[in-house]
């Protein structure tokens, strides 16, 4: 049946998108859980990762044209992750740490400033035009049931799943994870227990940045394009996903990401039919915003978050 096939296809597309959103949302949620700050510049870390990978792949390919596609992809990620981690650590140290006790407006505005800075630096280094991200993995369609996928899409879902499981293990089973949870709950008491809050916060930013770097490389592979402004919309949507799942809650970010991806894919796929052609799929981005507003107005703690009382 045609419509069942479309449905399964859109569900799969949603899973792919959702895995990306989940990876990025994890960065937002971990930082918010620990320092109560929305890292506005997180989307731009993704952008830096994608563009760095682009340059690394181009360089590697130029030096050694025999490297297979998956090797280049690996090189791209290996190049992107350290750069993003470094930038994120720098951001935290220079722009966020001095403002940890400032009124809420200050770190938010600083974050906007950092975001603009990253975008303009990217504009200077990589130019203003959209750059093509090469197709590193084969784009032959593979049929899974009624849906058609590519190796890249499968990689996105698989890699994201592995990373998320690894992150959960890190947070639940390791000392660092325990330290992160403790600092998120109460930094002072955690310090009394021997945790170095500055180090833990730095580690949180670093992990978030690494996730964003991987997500950036995959996003660029999926859409075959990278440019200085590419981080804004995915960043915003990932933030929506984090809020949807309950900000500060790691499984929530994962759930929120997948859900948002599904909502967006199914919505974009079916809105034509539902609105009799009034709204087309170019309104796709609006879905995420509508979800965001709906969640914040109706259930601000998110799906998995705890109810927190109003504070002045």
């Amino acid at each position, binding site marked *: 049946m045609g419509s069942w096939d479309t449905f399964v296809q859109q569900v799969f597309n949603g899973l792919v998108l959702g895995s990306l959103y989940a990876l990025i949302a994890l960065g937002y949620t971990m930082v918010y859980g620990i320092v109560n*700050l*929305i890292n506005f510049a997180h989307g731009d870390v993704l952008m830096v990762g994608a563009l760095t990978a682009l340059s690394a792949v181009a360089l590697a390919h130029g030096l050694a044209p025999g490297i297979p596609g998956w090797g280049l992809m690996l090189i791209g990620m290996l190049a992107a992750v350290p750069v993003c981690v470094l930038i994120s650590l720098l951001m935290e140290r*220079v*722009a966020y740490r*001095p*403002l940890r006790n*400032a*009124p*809420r*407006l*200050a*770190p*938010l*505005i*600083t974050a*906007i*400033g*950092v*975001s*603009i*800075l*990253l*975008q*303009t*630096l990217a*504009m*200077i280094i990589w130019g*203003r035009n959209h750059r093509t991200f090469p197709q590193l993995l084969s784009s032959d369609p593979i049929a899974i049931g009624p849906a058609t996928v590519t190796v890249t899409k499968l990689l996105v879902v698989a890699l994201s799943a592995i990373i998320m499981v690894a992150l959960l293990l890190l947070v639940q089973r390791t000392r660092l994870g325990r330290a992160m949870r403790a600092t998120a709950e109460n930094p002072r008491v955690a310090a009394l227990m021997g945790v170095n809050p500055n180090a833990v916060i730095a580690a949180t930013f670093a992990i978030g940045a690494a996730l964003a770097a991987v997500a950036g490389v995959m996003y660029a592979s999926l859409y075959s394009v990278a440019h200085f402004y590419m981080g*804004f919309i995915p960043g*915003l949507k990932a*933030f929506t996903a984090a*809020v949807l799942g309950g900000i500060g809650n790691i499984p929530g970010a994962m759930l929120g990401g997948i859900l948002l991806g599904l909502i967006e894919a199914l919505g974009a796929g079916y809105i034509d039919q539902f609105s009799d*052609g*009034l709204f*087309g799929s*170019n*309104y796709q*981005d*609006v879905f995420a*915003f*509508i979800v*965001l*507003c709906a969640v*914040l*107005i109706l259930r*601000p703690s998110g799906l998995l978050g705890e109810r927190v009382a*109003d504070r*002045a």
Partner: protein
Amino acid sequence: MASFGGTDPHRRAALAATALIAVVLLVLPLAAGWLGPAWVRTLAFAALYVMLALGLNIVVGFAGLLDLGYIAFYAVGAYTFALLASPHLTDNFPSIARTFPDGLHVPIWAAIPLGAAIAAAFGVLLGAPVLKLRGDYLAIVTLGFGEIIRIFLNNLNAPINLTNGPQGITLIDPVRIGPLRFDHGASVFGLALSSLQLYYYLFTALALLCILVCVRLQDSRLGRAWMAIREDEIAAKAMGINVRNVKLLAFGLGATFGGVSGSMFAAFQGFVSPESFSLMESVIVLSMIVLGGLGHIPGVILGAVMLSVFPELLRHTVGPMQTQLFGRILIDTEVLRMLLYGVALVLIMLYRPKGLWPAPQHGVAPRGVAQPPPMPPAAAA
């Protein structure tokens, strides 16, 4: 003894300052005209941005509601004027063309209030669902709203062509006051004024009106209610302030300023497109009030003027300087301008978070009044 300005030296000084400012404002475009039309245009835009900054200041500075989608109201005002005073509606809707056979040319004394009213309606519409949100969440949701409006403006060209999509609306009427058409120059008091200079005077007059409104609002019950909400919402509620209405009024009034400047922008430029209303514009207006002094009207004006004039200065100095030093333009001045915005935002928040010209502190006595000795510093918590 009656004398000019009374015998009080402070009042005399204030009046002298006002007179000086008035003279400067009147003469400025003529002086700038000598340097070139680009500078007069900059001054006109500076006046527009002053209005925008004052509007955003009501929402962010007075009421403490961080609004990152403020440019949406500017867009609404601009598109309202564009629809009312251009051939777009008559071209695309035969029923409207029949009702207005001479074309739709709403005069500005009707279009500005309409633009302001519609923008205010949007402001209330935006404010209503976000009343419970604080700080970061409010910022993100308002940003989302701003983007939604831009996406709609970009896409409402099918099935009914309301906004003409990414191509925007062109052939917007210029401002017409009596026999004076602002897109041609005019001779006023024997002086030949160019079109840009005429717009400058109009915008400055409107900006002065906005300043007056803001100053009166600041000292009114409403203004004090806003500041109470900004400082402590629960305490404000306990004092009997109707927080919901006061917040909606903040959004609505702030949006009105945006709507008025938007309509004027549309008339000035003659064409509007969704590109002019991006998130970056919202951020620019926000940087103006943050840089100048959040919540302090003179500071906001300073910030708006500085950040409007500075890019022009950059263009005229850094461009040639780069060519001289490096033989070519290394960094485009547009990019440099954005880079400096980002750096400025971060530096200001780190080192001078209250802005360049902040509001005077509560509890700090004015000059000339004896101060009590400072308290010893409290033991660190």
